[in-house]
Protein backbone atom coordinates (compact mmCIF):
# COMPACT_ATOMS: atom_id res chain seq x y z
CA UNK A 1 0.00 0.00 0.00
CA UNK A 2 2.62 2.45 1.19
CA UNK A 3 4.46 2.74 -2.09
CA UNK A 4 1.35 4.30 -3.60
CA UNK A 5 1.96 7.46 -1.60
CA UNK A 6 4.62 10.10 -2.29
CA UNK A 7 7.56 10.27 0.10
CA UNK A 8 6.17 13.21 2.05
CA UNK A 9 2.98 11.30 2.87
CA UNK A 10 4.95 8.24 3.90
CA UNK A 11 7.03 10.45 6.19
CA UNK A 12 3.88 11.93 7.78
CA UNK A 13 2.44 8.49 8.41
CA UNK A 14 5.72 7.27 9.85
CA UNK A 15 5.99 10.31 12.11
CA UNK A 16 2.42 9.76 13.28
CA UNK A 17 3.01 6.14 14.20
CA UNK A 18 6.38 6.82 15.78
CA UNK A 19 5.23 9.68 17.99
CA UNK A 20 2.03 7.94 19.07
CA UNK A 21 4.07 4.90 20.06
CA UNK A 22 6.54 7.10 21.94
CA UNK A 23 3.68 8.79 23.82
CA UNK A 24 2.23 5.43 24.79
CA UNK A 25 5.57 4.22 26.12
CA UNK A 26 6.19 7.47 28.00
CA UNK A 27 2.67 7.24 29.44
CA UNK A 28 3.25 3.74 30.78
CA UNK A 29 6.59 4.43 32.50
CA UNK A 30 5.19 6.42 35.46
CA UNK A 31 2.88 3.52 36.31
CA UNK A 32 5.99 1.54 37.20
CA UNK A 33 7.10 3.32 40.43
CA UNK A 34 3.50 3.65 41.57
CA UNK A 35 2.90 -0.10 41.32
CA UNK A 36 6.34 -0.82 42.79
CA UNK A 37 5.42 1.20 45.86
CA UNK A 38 2.23 -0.80 46.44
CA UNK A 39 3.93 -4.12 45.74
CA UNK A 40 6.92 -3.49 47.98
CA UNK A 41 4.71 -2.08 50.70
CA UNK A 42 2.76 -5.31 50.96
CA UNK A 43 5.80 -7.49 50.33
CA UNK A 44 7.68 -5.90 53.23
CA UNK A 45 4.89 -5.17 55.62
CA UNK A 46 2.62 -8.19 55.49
CA UNK A 47 4.84 -10.20 57.84
CA UNK A 48 4.47 -7.70 60.68
CA UNK A 49 0.69 -7.88 60.62
CA UNK A 50 -0.47 -10.06 63.49
CA UNK A 51 -3.10 -9.79 66.17
CA UNK A 52 -0.44 -8.57 68.63
CA UNK A 53 0.43 -5.77 66.24
CA UNK A 54 -3.10 -4.40 66.45
CA UNK A 55 -3.78 -4.81 70.18
CA UNK A 56 -0.40 -4.12 71.84
CA UNK A 57 1.37 -0.91 72.75
CA UNK A 58 4.82 -0.08 71.32
CA UNK A 59 7.73 -1.92 72.92
CA UNK A 60 10.64 0.13 74.32
CA UNK A 61 13.39 0.86 71.78
CA UNK A 62 15.61 -2.12 71.09
CA UNK A 63 13.10 -4.68 72.37
CA UNK A 64 11.27 -6.66 69.75
CA UNK A 65 7.52 -7.13 69.57
CA UNK A 66 4.92 -4.58 70.52
CA UNK A 67 2.18 -3.09 68.40
CA UNK A 68 0.56 0.11 67.30
CA UNK A 69 -2.79 -0.07 69.10
CA UNK A 70 -2.40 3.44 70.50
CA UNK A 71 -1.66 4.89 67.06
CA UNK A 72 -4.71 3.28 65.46
CA UNK A 73 -6.96 4.55 68.24
CA UNK A 74 -5.21 7.93 68.11
CA UNK A 75 -5.75 8.31 64.37
CA UNK A 76 -9.46 7.60 64.80
CA UNK A 77 -9.79 10.14 67.63
CA UNK A 78 -7.77 12.89 65.95
CA UNK A 79 -9.45 12.48 62.55
CA UNK A 80 -12.91 12.09 64.14
CA UNK A 81 -12.48 15.26 66.16
CA UNK A 82 -11.22 17.13 63.09
CA UNK A 83 -14.33 16.00 61.21
CA UNK A 84 -16.57 17.17 64.05
CA UNK A 85 -14.91 20.60 63.97
CA UNK A 86 -14.59 20.95 60.21
CA UNK A 87 -17.79 19.53 58.75
CA UNK A 88 -20.45 21.83 60.30
CA UNK A 89 -18.43 24.93 59.41
CA UNK A 90 -17.83 23.67 55.87
CA UNK A 91 -21.42 22.65 55.15
CA UNK A 92 -22.78 25.99 56.39
CA UNK A 93 -20.18 27.86 54.34
CA UNK A 94 -21.10 25.71 51.32
CA UNK A 95 -24.78 26.52 51.88
CA UNK A 96 -23.87 30.20 52.03
CA UNK A 97 -22.08 29.99 48.67
CA UNK A 98 -24.82 28.09 46.84
CA UNK A 99 -27.98 29.54 48.48
CA UNK A 100 -27.15 33.07 49.59
CA UNK A 101 -23.83 34.36 48.26
CA UNK A 102 -24.08 33.02 44.70
CA UNK A 103 -22.27 35.42 42.36
CA UNK A 104 -21.70 38.29 44.79
CA UNK A 105 -18.20 39.70 45.27
CA UNK A 106 -18.13 38.46 48.85
CA UNK A 107 -18.96 34.89 47.81
CA UNK A 108 -16.22 35.06 45.17
CA UNK A 109 -13.80 36.16 47.90
CA UNK A 110 -14.85 33.15 50.01
CA UNK A 111 -14.17 30.86 47.04
CA UNK A 112 -10.73 32.34 46.40
CA UNK A 113 -9.89 32.01 50.11
CA UNK A 114 -11.03 28.37 50.13
CA UNK A 115 -8.70 27.72 47.17
CA UNK A 116 -5.87 29.55 48.92
CA UNK A 117 -6.44 27.57 52.13
CA UNK A 118 -6.39 24.34 50.15
CA UNK A 119 -3.01 25.28 48.71
CA UNK A 120 -1.37 26.18 52.02
CA UNK A 121 1.38 23.61 52.72
CA UNK A 122 0.43 21.25 55.53
CA UNK A 123 3.55 22.08 57.52
CA UNK A 124 2.48 25.75 57.61
CA UNK A 125 -0.96 24.67 58.86
CA UNK A 126 0.93 22.84 61.62
CA UNK A 127 2.71 26.06 62.64
CA UNK A 128 -0.60 27.91 62.77
CA UNK A 129 -2.27 25.24 64.91
CA UNK A 130 0.78 25.34 67.17
CA UNK A 131 0.38 29.10 67.63
CA UNK A 132 -3.39 28.93 68.10
CA UNK A 133 -3.76 25.89 70.35
CA UNK A 134 -0.47 24.44 71.61
CA UNK A 135 1.06 27.74 72.75
CA UNK A 136 -2.00 28.91 74.80
CA UNK A 137 -2.45 25.44 76.32
CA UNK A 138 1.21 25.16 77.13
CA UNK A 139 1.62 21.61 75.81
CA UNK A 140 1.06 19.38 72.77
CA UNK A 141 -2.38 17.82 72.39
CA UNK A 142 -4.54 15.71 70.08
CA UNK A 143 -6.97 18.63 69.95
CA UNK A 144 -4.39 20.89 68.32
CA UNK A 145 -3.74 18.18 65.74
CA UNK A 146 -7.47 17.99 65.04
CA UNK A 147 -7.63 21.77 64.59
CA UNK A 148 -4.80 21.55 62.05
CA UNK A 149 -6.51 18.71 60.16
CA UNK A 150 -9.89 20.52 60.28
CA UNK A 151 -8.21 23.52 58.61
CA UNK A 152 -7.09 21.22 55.79
CA UNK A 153 -10.50 19.62 55.51
CA UNK A 154 -12.62 22.80 55.33
CA UNK A 155 -11.77 23.95 51.77
CA UNK A 156 -12.47 20.52 50.27
CA UNK A 157 -15.88 20.11 51.91
CA UNK A 158 -16.90 23.75 51.29
CA UNK A 159 -16.29 23.48 47.56
CA UNK A 160 -17.95 20.06 47.10
CA UNK A 161 -20.97 21.11 49.18
CA UNK A 162 -21.38 24.21 47.03
CA UNK A 163 -21.04 22.28 43.77
CA UNK A 164 -23.50 19.60 44.83
CA UNK A 165 -26.14 22.01 46.18
CA UNK A 166 -25.91 24.08 43.00
CA UNK A 167 -26.96 21.00 41.06
CA UNK A 168 -30.21 20.69 43.05
CA UNK A 169 -32.94 21.90 40.65
CA UNK A 170 -34.63 25.21 41.53
CA UNK A 171 -38.01 23.53 40.98
CA UNK A 172 -37.55 21.68 44.25
CA UNK A 173 -36.83 24.93 46.13
CA UNK A 174 -39.81 26.66 44.51
CA UNK A 175 -42.16 23.76 45.25
CA UNK A 176 -41.16 23.83 48.89
CA UNK A 177 -41.47 27.62 49.13
CA UNK A 178 -44.89 27.47 47.43
CA UNK A 179 -46.07 25.15 50.18
CA UNK A 180 -45.25 27.91 52.65
CA UNK A 181 -42.06 26.35 53.98
CA UNK A 182 -39.63 29.08 54.98
CA UNK A 183 -36.33 29.22 53.08
CA UNK A 184 -34.11 28.05 55.93
CA UNK A 185 -36.25 24.94 56.38
CA UNK A 186 -36.31 24.43 52.62
CA UNK A 187 -32.52 24.44 52.63
CA UNK A 188 -32.22 22.02 55.54
CA UNK A 189 -35.12 19.69 54.67
CA UNK A 190 -35.18 19.72 50.88
CA UNK A 191 -31.97 21.06 49.33
CA UNK A 192 -29.42 19.51 51.70
CA UNK A 193 -31.03 16.01 51.80
CA UNK A 194 -31.21 16.00 47.99
CA UNK A 195 -27.47 16.67 47.80
CA UNK A 196 -26.57 14.54 50.81
CA UNK A 197 -24.86 11.75 48.87
CA UNK A 198 -22.62 14.29 47.17
CA UNK A 199 -21.83 16.07 50.40
CA UNK A 200 -20.97 12.73 52.02
CA UNK A 201 -18.64 11.96 49.11
CA UNK A 202 -16.89 15.27 49.71
CA UNK A 203 -16.51 14.53 53.41
CA UNK A 204 -15.08 11.06 52.69
CA UNK A 205 -12.57 12.51 50.21
CA UNK A 206 -11.55 15.11 52.79
CA UNK A 207 -11.19 12.50 55.55
CA UNK A 208 -9.08 10.31 53.28
CA UNK A 209 -6.92 13.32 52.56
CA UNK A 210 -6.28 14.23 56.20
CA UNK A 211 -6.00 10.70 57.62
CA UNK A 212 -2.52 10.28 56.15
CA UNK A 213 -1.25 13.78 56.91
CA UNK A 214 1.92 13.76 58.99
CA UNK A 215 3.44 17.22 58.81
CA UNK A 216 0.63 19.09 60.65
CA UNK A 217 0.79 16.55 63.50
CA UNK A 218 4.54 16.79 64.14
CA UNK A 219 4.25 19.69 66.55
CA UNK A 220 0.58 19.45 67.50
CA UNK A 221 -0.48 15.87 68.37
CA UNK A 222 3.27 15.16 68.68
CA UNK A 223 3.02 11.41 69.38
CA UNK A 224 2.88 9.32 72.52
CA UNK A 225 4.27 5.91 73.43
CA UNK A 226 1.25 5.17 75.61
CA UNK A 227 -2.45 4.75 75.05
CA UNK A 228 -4.50 7.84 75.75
CA UNK A 229 -8.11 8.70 75.00
CA UNK A 230 -7.86 12.26 76.32
CA UNK A 231 -7.78 14.73 73.42
CA UNK A 232 -6.06 17.30 75.64
CA UNK A 233 -2.95 15.13 75.89
CA UNK A 234 -0.32 14.36 73.25
CA UNK A 235 -1.52 11.43 71.19
CA UNK A 236 -0.01 8.99 68.73
CA UNK A 237 -1.23 8.59 65.15
CA UNK A 238 -0.39 6.14 62.35
CA UNK A 239 1.49 8.66 60.15
CA UNK A 240 3.58 9.77 63.15
CA UNK A 241 4.49 6.15 63.93
CA UNK A 242 5.55 5.54 60.34
CA UNK A 243 7.73 8.67 60.28
CA UNK A 244 9.31 8.15 63.71
CA UNK A 245 9.97 4.43 63.18
CA UNK A 246 11.26 4.80 59.62
CA UNK A 247 13.81 7.41 60.68
CA UNK A 248 14.84 5.49 63.83
CA UNK A 249 18.01 3.38 63.94
CA UNK A 250 16.21 0.17 64.94
CA UNK A 251 15.56 -2.50 62.33
CA UNK A 252 12.65 -3.84 64.34
CA UNK A 253 10.94 -0.47 64.16
CA UNK A 254 11.51 -0.22 60.39
CA UNK A 255 9.60 -3.48 60.07
CA UNK A 256 6.75 -2.05 62.15
CA UNK A 257 6.74 1.12 60.03
CA UNK A 258 5.98 -1.06 56.98
CA UNK A 259 3.18 -2.80 58.87
CA UNK A 260 1.69 0.52 60.00
CA UNK A 261 1.90 1.74 56.41
CA UNK A 262 -0.25 -1.14 55.18
CA UNK A 263 -2.89 -0.30 57.79
CA UNK A 264 -2.82 3.38 56.80
CA UNK A 265 -2.88 2.70 53.05
CA UNK A 266 -5.81 0.31 53.39
CA UNK A 267 -7.70 2.91 55.42
CA UNK A 268 -7.05 5.71 52.92
CA UNK A 269 -7.67 3.57 49.83
CA UNK A 270 -10.86 2.20 51.42
CA UNK A 271 -12.20 5.70 52.03
CA UNK A 272 -11.28 6.74 48.50
CA UNK A 273 -12.94 3.73 46.90
CA UNK A 274 -16.05 4.26 49.03
CA UNK A 275 -16.26 7.89 47.92
CA UNK A 276 -15.87 6.84 44.24
CA UNK A 277 -18.68 4.31 44.58
CA UNK A 278 -20.93 6.96 46.12
CA UNK A 279 -19.99 9.42 43.37
CA UNK A 280 -20.86 6.79 40.79
CA UNK A 281 -24.25 6.32 42.47
CA UNK A 282 -24.98 10.02 42.07
CA UNK A 283 -23.96 9.89 38.43
CA UNK A 284 -26.24 6.88 37.97
CA UNK A 285 -29.22 8.65 39.49
CA UNK A 286 -28.98 11.52 37.10
Amino acid sequence: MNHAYPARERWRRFKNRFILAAITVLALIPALPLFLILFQLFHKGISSLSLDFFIHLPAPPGESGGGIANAIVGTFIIVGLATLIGVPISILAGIYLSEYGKDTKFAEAVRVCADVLQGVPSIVIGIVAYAWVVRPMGHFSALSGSVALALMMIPVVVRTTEEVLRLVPDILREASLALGVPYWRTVLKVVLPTGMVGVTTGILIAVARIAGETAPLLFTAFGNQFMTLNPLEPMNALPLVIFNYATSPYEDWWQQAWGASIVLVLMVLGLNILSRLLARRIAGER
Partner: protein
Amino acid sequence: MFEPKNLYRQIKYDLLFRKLATSMGALVIFLVVATFFTLVYESWPAIKAFGLRFLWNTTWDPVSLEFGALPFLVGTLITSFLALLIATPFALAGAIFLGELAPPKIANPVSFVMELLAGIPSVIYGLWALFYLVPLVRAFELKIGAPPYGLGLFTASLVLAIMILPYALSVARDVIKLVPQDLKEAAYGLGATRWETIRHIVLPYARSGILAGIVLALGRALGETMAVTMVIGNRSAMPQSIWDLANTMASVIANEFTEATEDVHLAALVEIGLLLFVITVVVNLVARIFIVKTKVR
Protein backbone atom coordinates in the same frame (compact mmCIF):
# COMPACT_ATOMS: atom_id res chain seq x y z
CA MET B 1 -48.18 28.75 59.25
CA PHE B 2 -49.97 31.91 58.29
CA GLU B 3 -50.62 33.21 61.79
CA PRO B 4 -48.68 36.48 62.04
CA LYS B 5 -46.81 35.42 65.19
CA ASN B 6 -45.58 32.24 63.59
CA LEU B 7 -44.75 34.10 60.41
CA TYR B 8 -42.62 36.64 62.28
CA ARG B 9 -40.84 33.83 64.04
CA GLN B 10 -40.07 32.11 60.75
CA ILE B 11 -38.79 35.36 59.27
CA LYS B 12 -36.55 35.71 62.29
CA TYR B 13 -35.23 32.15 61.87
CA ASP B 14 -34.73 32.80 58.19
CA LEU B 15 -32.57 35.82 58.91
CA LEU B 16 -30.76 33.96 61.68
CA PHE B 17 -29.92 31.01 59.43
CA ARG B 18 -28.79 33.33 56.67
CA LYS B 19 -26.51 35.13 59.12
CA LEU B 20 -25.14 31.84 60.44
CA ALA B 21 -24.32 30.55 56.94
CA THR B 22 -22.84 33.89 55.90
CA SER B 23 -20.67 34.06 59.00
CA MET B 24 -19.26 30.59 58.23
CA GLY B 25 -18.42 31.87 54.75
CA ALA B 26 -16.75 34.84 56.38
CA LEU B 27 -14.89 32.44 58.68
CA VAL B 28 -13.17 30.89 55.64
CA ILE B 29 -11.86 34.33 54.67
CA PHE B 30 -10.94 35.02 58.29
CA LEU B 31 -8.95 31.76 58.53
CA VAL B 32 -6.75 32.73 55.59
CA VAL B 33 -6.20 36.28 56.87
CA ALA B 34 -5.59 35.01 60.41
CA THR B 35 -3.09 32.44 59.11
CA PHE B 36 -1.12 35.20 57.42
CA PHE B 37 -1.11 37.51 60.45
CA THR B 38 -0.31 34.68 62.85
CA LEU B 39 2.74 33.83 60.76
CA VAL B 40 3.82 37.49 60.64
CA TYR B 41 3.28 37.93 64.38
CA GLU B 42 5.11 34.73 65.34
CA SER B 43 8.05 35.47 63.09
CA TRP B 44 8.35 39.11 64.16
CA PRO B 45 11.46 38.59 66.39
CA ALA B 46 13.29 37.14 63.38
CA ILE B 47 12.01 39.79 60.97
CA LYS B 48 13.19 42.47 63.40
CA ALA B 49 16.57 40.85 64.01
CA PHE B 50 17.54 39.98 60.44
CA GLY B 51 15.39 42.16 58.19
CA LEU B 52 15.65 41.53 54.47
CA ARG B 53 19.12 40.01 54.93
CA PHE B 54 17.24 36.86 55.99
CA LEU B 55 16.46 36.23 52.33
CA TRP B 56 20.03 36.07 51.04
CA ASN B 57 22.07 35.16 54.10
CA THR B 58 23.51 31.68 53.53
CA THR B 59 24.35 30.95 57.17
CA TRP B 60 21.89 28.97 59.28
CA ASP B 61 23.48 28.46 62.68
CA PRO B 62 21.25 27.72 65.68
CA VAL B 63 24.32 27.82 67.99
CA SER B 64 25.48 31.34 67.22
CA LEU B 65 21.86 32.33 66.51
CA GLU B 66 22.51 33.58 63.01
CA PHE B 67 19.75 32.72 60.58
CA GLY B 68 19.46 33.07 56.81
CA ALA B 69 16.98 31.29 54.59
CA LEU B 70 18.82 31.18 51.28
CA PRO B 71 20.00 27.53 51.51
CA PHE B 72 16.38 26.43 52.01
CA LEU B 73 14.97 28.72 49.34
CA VAL B 74 17.51 27.22 46.94
CA GLY B 75 16.77 23.68 48.17
CA THR B 76 13.04 24.14 47.64
CA LEU B 77 13.45 25.74 44.21
CA ILE B 78 15.90 23.10 42.95
CA THR B 79 13.89 20.09 44.14
CA SER B 80 10.55 21.51 42.92
CA PHE B 81 11.72 22.53 39.48
CA LEU B 82 13.81 19.41 38.96
CA ALA B 83 10.75 17.34 39.94
CA LEU B 84 8.63 19.32 37.51
CA LEU B 85 11.23 18.86 34.77
CA ILE B 86 11.23 15.09 35.33
CA ALA B 87 7.46 14.74 35.72
CA THR B 88 6.14 17.01 32.97
CA PRO B 89 7.01 14.91 29.87
CA PHE B 90 5.51 11.80 31.45
CA ALA B 91 2.47 13.66 32.71
CA LEU B 92 1.85 15.19 29.30
CA ALA B 93 2.28 11.86 27.52
CA GLY B 94 0.02 10.19 30.07
CA ALA B 95 -2.62 12.88 29.66
CA ILE B 96 -2.59 12.55 25.86
CA PHE B 97 -2.71 8.78 26.17
CA LEU B 98 -5.60 8.68 28.65
CA GLY B 99 -7.50 11.65 27.25
CA GLU B 100 -7.11 11.06 23.54
CA LEU B 101 -5.53 7.77 22.47
CA ALA B 102 -6.68 5.01 24.80
CA PRO B 103 -10.18 3.55 24.36
CA PRO B 104 -12.44 4.20 27.39
CA LYS B 105 -12.21 0.52 28.32
CA ILE B 106 -8.53 1.02 29.15
CA ALA B 107 -8.53 4.72 30.04
CA ASN B 108 -11.23 4.54 32.73
CA PRO B 109 -9.76 1.82 34.96
CA VAL B 110 -6.25 3.22 34.53
CA SER B 111 -7.44 6.70 35.54
CA PHE B 112 -9.26 5.18 38.51
CA VAL B 113 -6.18 3.34 39.78
CA MET B 114 -4.01 6.39 39.19
CA GLU B 115 -6.28 8.62 41.23
CA LEU B 116 -6.29 6.10 44.06
CA LEU B 117 -2.50 6.02 44.04
CA ALA B 118 -2.44 9.81 44.17
CA GLY B 119 -4.14 9.47 47.55
CA ILE B 120 -1.30 7.50 49.15
CA PRO B 121 0.00 9.57 52.08
CA SER B 122 3.32 11.28 51.52
CA VAL B 123 4.93 9.68 54.57
CA ILE B 124 4.55 6.32 52.80
CA TYR B 125 6.26 7.66 49.67
CA GLY B 126 9.01 8.76 52.06
CA LEU B 127 9.28 5.33 53.66
CA TRP B 128 9.46 3.64 50.26
CA ALA B 129 12.02 6.12 48.98
CA LEU B 130 14.17 5.72 52.08
CA PHE B 131 14.42 1.95 51.70
CA TYR B 132 14.24 1.42 47.93
CA LEU B 133 15.08 4.62 46.08
CA VAL B 134 18.03 5.67 48.28
CA PRO B 135 20.06 2.48 47.63
CA LEU B 136 19.34 2.78 43.90
CA VAL B 137 20.51 6.39 43.82
CA ARG B 138 23.58 5.47 45.89
CA ALA B 139 24.55 2.78 43.37
CA PHE B 140 24.07 5.30 40.56
CA GLU B 141 26.19 7.90 42.38
CA LEU B 142 29.00 5.38 42.88
CA LYS B 143 28.94 4.64 39.18
CA ILE B 144 29.23 8.28 38.10
CA GLY B 145 31.70 9.19 40.84
CA ALA B 146 29.44 11.52 42.84
CA PRO B 147 29.53 11.39 46.66
CA PRO B 148 27.50 8.24 47.42
CA TYR B 149 25.13 9.56 50.08
CA GLY B 150 22.04 8.09 48.44
CA LEU B 151 20.12 10.85 50.20
CA GLY B 152 20.10 14.40 48.88
CA LEU B 153 18.58 16.89 46.47
CA PHE B 154 18.40 14.48 43.54
CA THR B 155 16.63 11.72 45.49
CA ALA B 156 14.16 14.24 46.92
CA SER B 157 13.42 15.53 43.41
CA LEU B 158 12.77 11.99 42.17
CA VAL B 159 10.26 11.26 44.95
CA LEU B 160 8.60 14.61 44.36
CA ALA B 161 8.34 13.87 40.65
CA ILE B 162 6.61 10.55 41.36
CA MET B 163 4.25 12.24 43.82
CA ILE B 164 3.18 15.22 41.69
CA LEU B 165 2.84 13.30 38.45
CA PRO B 166 -0.73 12.07 39.01
CA TYR B 167 -1.83 15.65 39.81
CA ALA B 168 -0.45 17.26 36.69
CA LEU B 169 -1.62 14.29 34.65
CA SER B 170 -5.24 14.25 35.77
CA VAL B 171 -5.75 18.01 35.33
CA ALA B 172 -4.19 17.89 31.85
CA ARG B 173 -6.25 14.81 30.90
CA ASP B 174 -9.49 16.51 31.95
CA VAL B 175 -8.80 19.54 29.75
CA ILE B 176 -7.73 17.41 26.81
CA LYS B 177 -11.04 15.57 27.07
CA LEU B 178 -12.85 18.91 26.88
CA VAL B 179 -11.54 19.69 23.38
CA PRO B 180 -14.65 19.74 21.14
CA GLN B 181 -15.04 16.72 18.91
CA ASP B 182 -15.97 18.79 15.82
CA LEU B 183 -12.64 20.66 15.91
CA LYS B 184 -10.79 17.36 15.83
CA GLU B 185 -13.04 15.96 13.11
CA ALA B 186 -12.47 19.07 11.03
CA ALA B 187 -8.73 18.45 11.24
CA TYR B 188 -9.13 14.79 10.28
CA GLY B 189 -11.38 15.91 7.43
CA LEU B 190 -8.57 18.08 6.10
CA GLY B 191 -6.37 14.99 6.01
CA ALA B 192 -4.41 15.55 9.22
CA THR B 193 -2.92 12.50 10.91
CA ARG B 194 -3.76 11.74 14.51
CA TRP B 195 -0.51 13.25 15.78
CA GLU B 196 -0.95 16.37 13.64
CA THR B 197 -4.43 16.80 15.12
CA ILE B 198 -3.05 16.47 18.65
CA ARG B 199 -0.15 18.78 17.90
CA HIS B 200 -2.07 21.54 16.13
CA ILE B 201 -5.62 21.30 17.53
CA VAL B 202 -5.77 19.49 20.88
CA LEU B 203 -2.64 20.83 22.59
CA PRO B 204 -3.11 24.51 21.64
CA TYR B 205 -6.76 24.33 22.71
CA ALA B 206 -5.89 22.73 26.05
CA ARG B 207 -2.78 24.85 26.64
CA SER B 208 -3.90 26.96 29.58
CA GLY B 209 -5.48 23.97 31.31
CA ILE B 210 -2.29 21.96 30.94
CA LEU B 211 -0.30 24.90 32.31
CA ALA B 212 -2.72 25.11 35.24
CA GLY B 213 -2.08 21.44 36.00
CA ILE B 214 1.68 21.99 35.93
CA VAL B 215 1.45 25.07 38.16
CA LEU B 216 -0.81 23.21 40.62
CA ALA B 217 1.73 20.38 40.71
CA LEU B 218 4.45 22.96 41.36
CA GLY B 219 2.45 24.34 44.28
CA ARG B 220 2.22 20.88 45.74
CA ALA B 221 5.93 20.21 45.24
CA LEU B 222 6.91 23.48 46.94
CA GLY B 223 5.02 22.62 50.11
CA GLU B 224 5.57 18.87 50.23
CA THR B 225 7.15 18.02 53.56
CA MET B 226 7.36 14.43 54.76
CA ALA B 227 8.73 12.51 51.78
CA VAL B 228 11.33 15.22 51.20
CA THR B 229 12.30 15.43 54.87
CA MET B 230 12.97 11.70 54.93
CA VAL B 231 15.33 11.58 51.96
CA ILE B 232 16.99 14.98 51.55
CA GLY B 233 19.65 14.47 54.22
CA ASN B 234 18.86 17.51 56.37
CA ARG B 235 21.98 19.59 56.00
CA SER B 236 21.50 23.33 56.51
CA ALA B 237 24.29 24.59 54.27
CA MET B 238 24.24 25.95 50.76
CA PRO B 239 24.02 22.96 48.37
CA GLN B 240 26.90 22.82 45.86
CA SER B 241 25.49 20.18 43.48
CA ILE B 242 22.31 18.15 43.04
CA TRP B 243 24.04 15.18 44.76
CA ASP B 244 24.48 17.20 47.95
CA LEU B 245 22.65 16.73 51.21
CA ALA B 246 20.40 19.72 51.73
CA ASN B 247 17.18 20.99 53.28
CA THR B 248 14.05 22.53 51.81
CA MET B 249 11.97 25.20 53.51
CA ALA B 250 9.40 22.62 54.57
CA SER B 251 11.92 20.02 55.71
CA VAL B 252 13.90 22.40 57.93
CA ILE B 253 10.69 23.39 59.71
CA ALA B 254 9.71 19.74 60.18
CA ASN B 255 13.16 18.92 61.56
CA GLU B 256 13.91 21.80 63.86
CA PHE B 257 10.57 23.17 65.06
CA THR B 258 10.19 20.98 68.15
CA GLU B 259 13.90 21.27 68.98
CA ALA B 260 14.12 25.06 68.78
CA THR B 261 14.70 26.33 72.30
CA GLU B 262 15.64 29.94 71.51
CA ASP B 263 12.79 32.32 70.62
CA VAL B 264 14.65 33.75 67.65
CA HIS B 265 15.33 30.26 66.24
CA LEU B 266 11.61 29.43 66.43
CA ALA B 267 10.74 32.81 64.92
CA ALA B 268 13.19 32.21 62.06
CA LEU B 269 11.52 28.86 61.35
CA VAL B 270 8.09 30.51 61.35
CA GLU B 271 9.43 33.16 58.98
CA ILE B 272 10.41 30.38 56.58
CA GLY B 273 6.84 29.14 56.95
CA LEU B 274 5.62 32.64 56.13
CA LEU B 275 7.77 32.73 52.97
CA LEU B 276 6.45 29.31 51.99
CA PHE B 277 2.88 30.49 52.58
CA VAL B 278 3.35 33.57 50.40
CA ILE B 279 5.03 31.59 47.60
CA THR B 280 2.37 28.88 47.48
CA VAL B 281 -0.49 31.42 47.62
CA VAL B 282 1.00 33.23 44.61
CA VAL B 283 1.52 29.96 42.72
CA ASN B 284 -2.04 28.82 43.41
CA LEU B 285 -3.53 32.14 42.37
CA VAL B 286 -1.59 31.93 39.10
CA ALA B 287 -2.99 28.41 38.55
CA ARG B 288 -6.47 29.79 39.28
CA ILE B 289 -6.06 32.44 36.57
CA PHE B 290 -5.18 29.72 34.04
CA ILE B 291 -8.19 27.66 35.10
CA VAL B 292 -10.57 30.61 34.82
CA LYS B 293 -9.14 31.23 31.34
CA THR B 294 -9.94 27.64 30.35
CA LYS B 295 -13.52 27.94 31.58
CA VAL B 296 -14.14 31.19 29.74
CA ARG B 297 -13.30 29.51 26.45
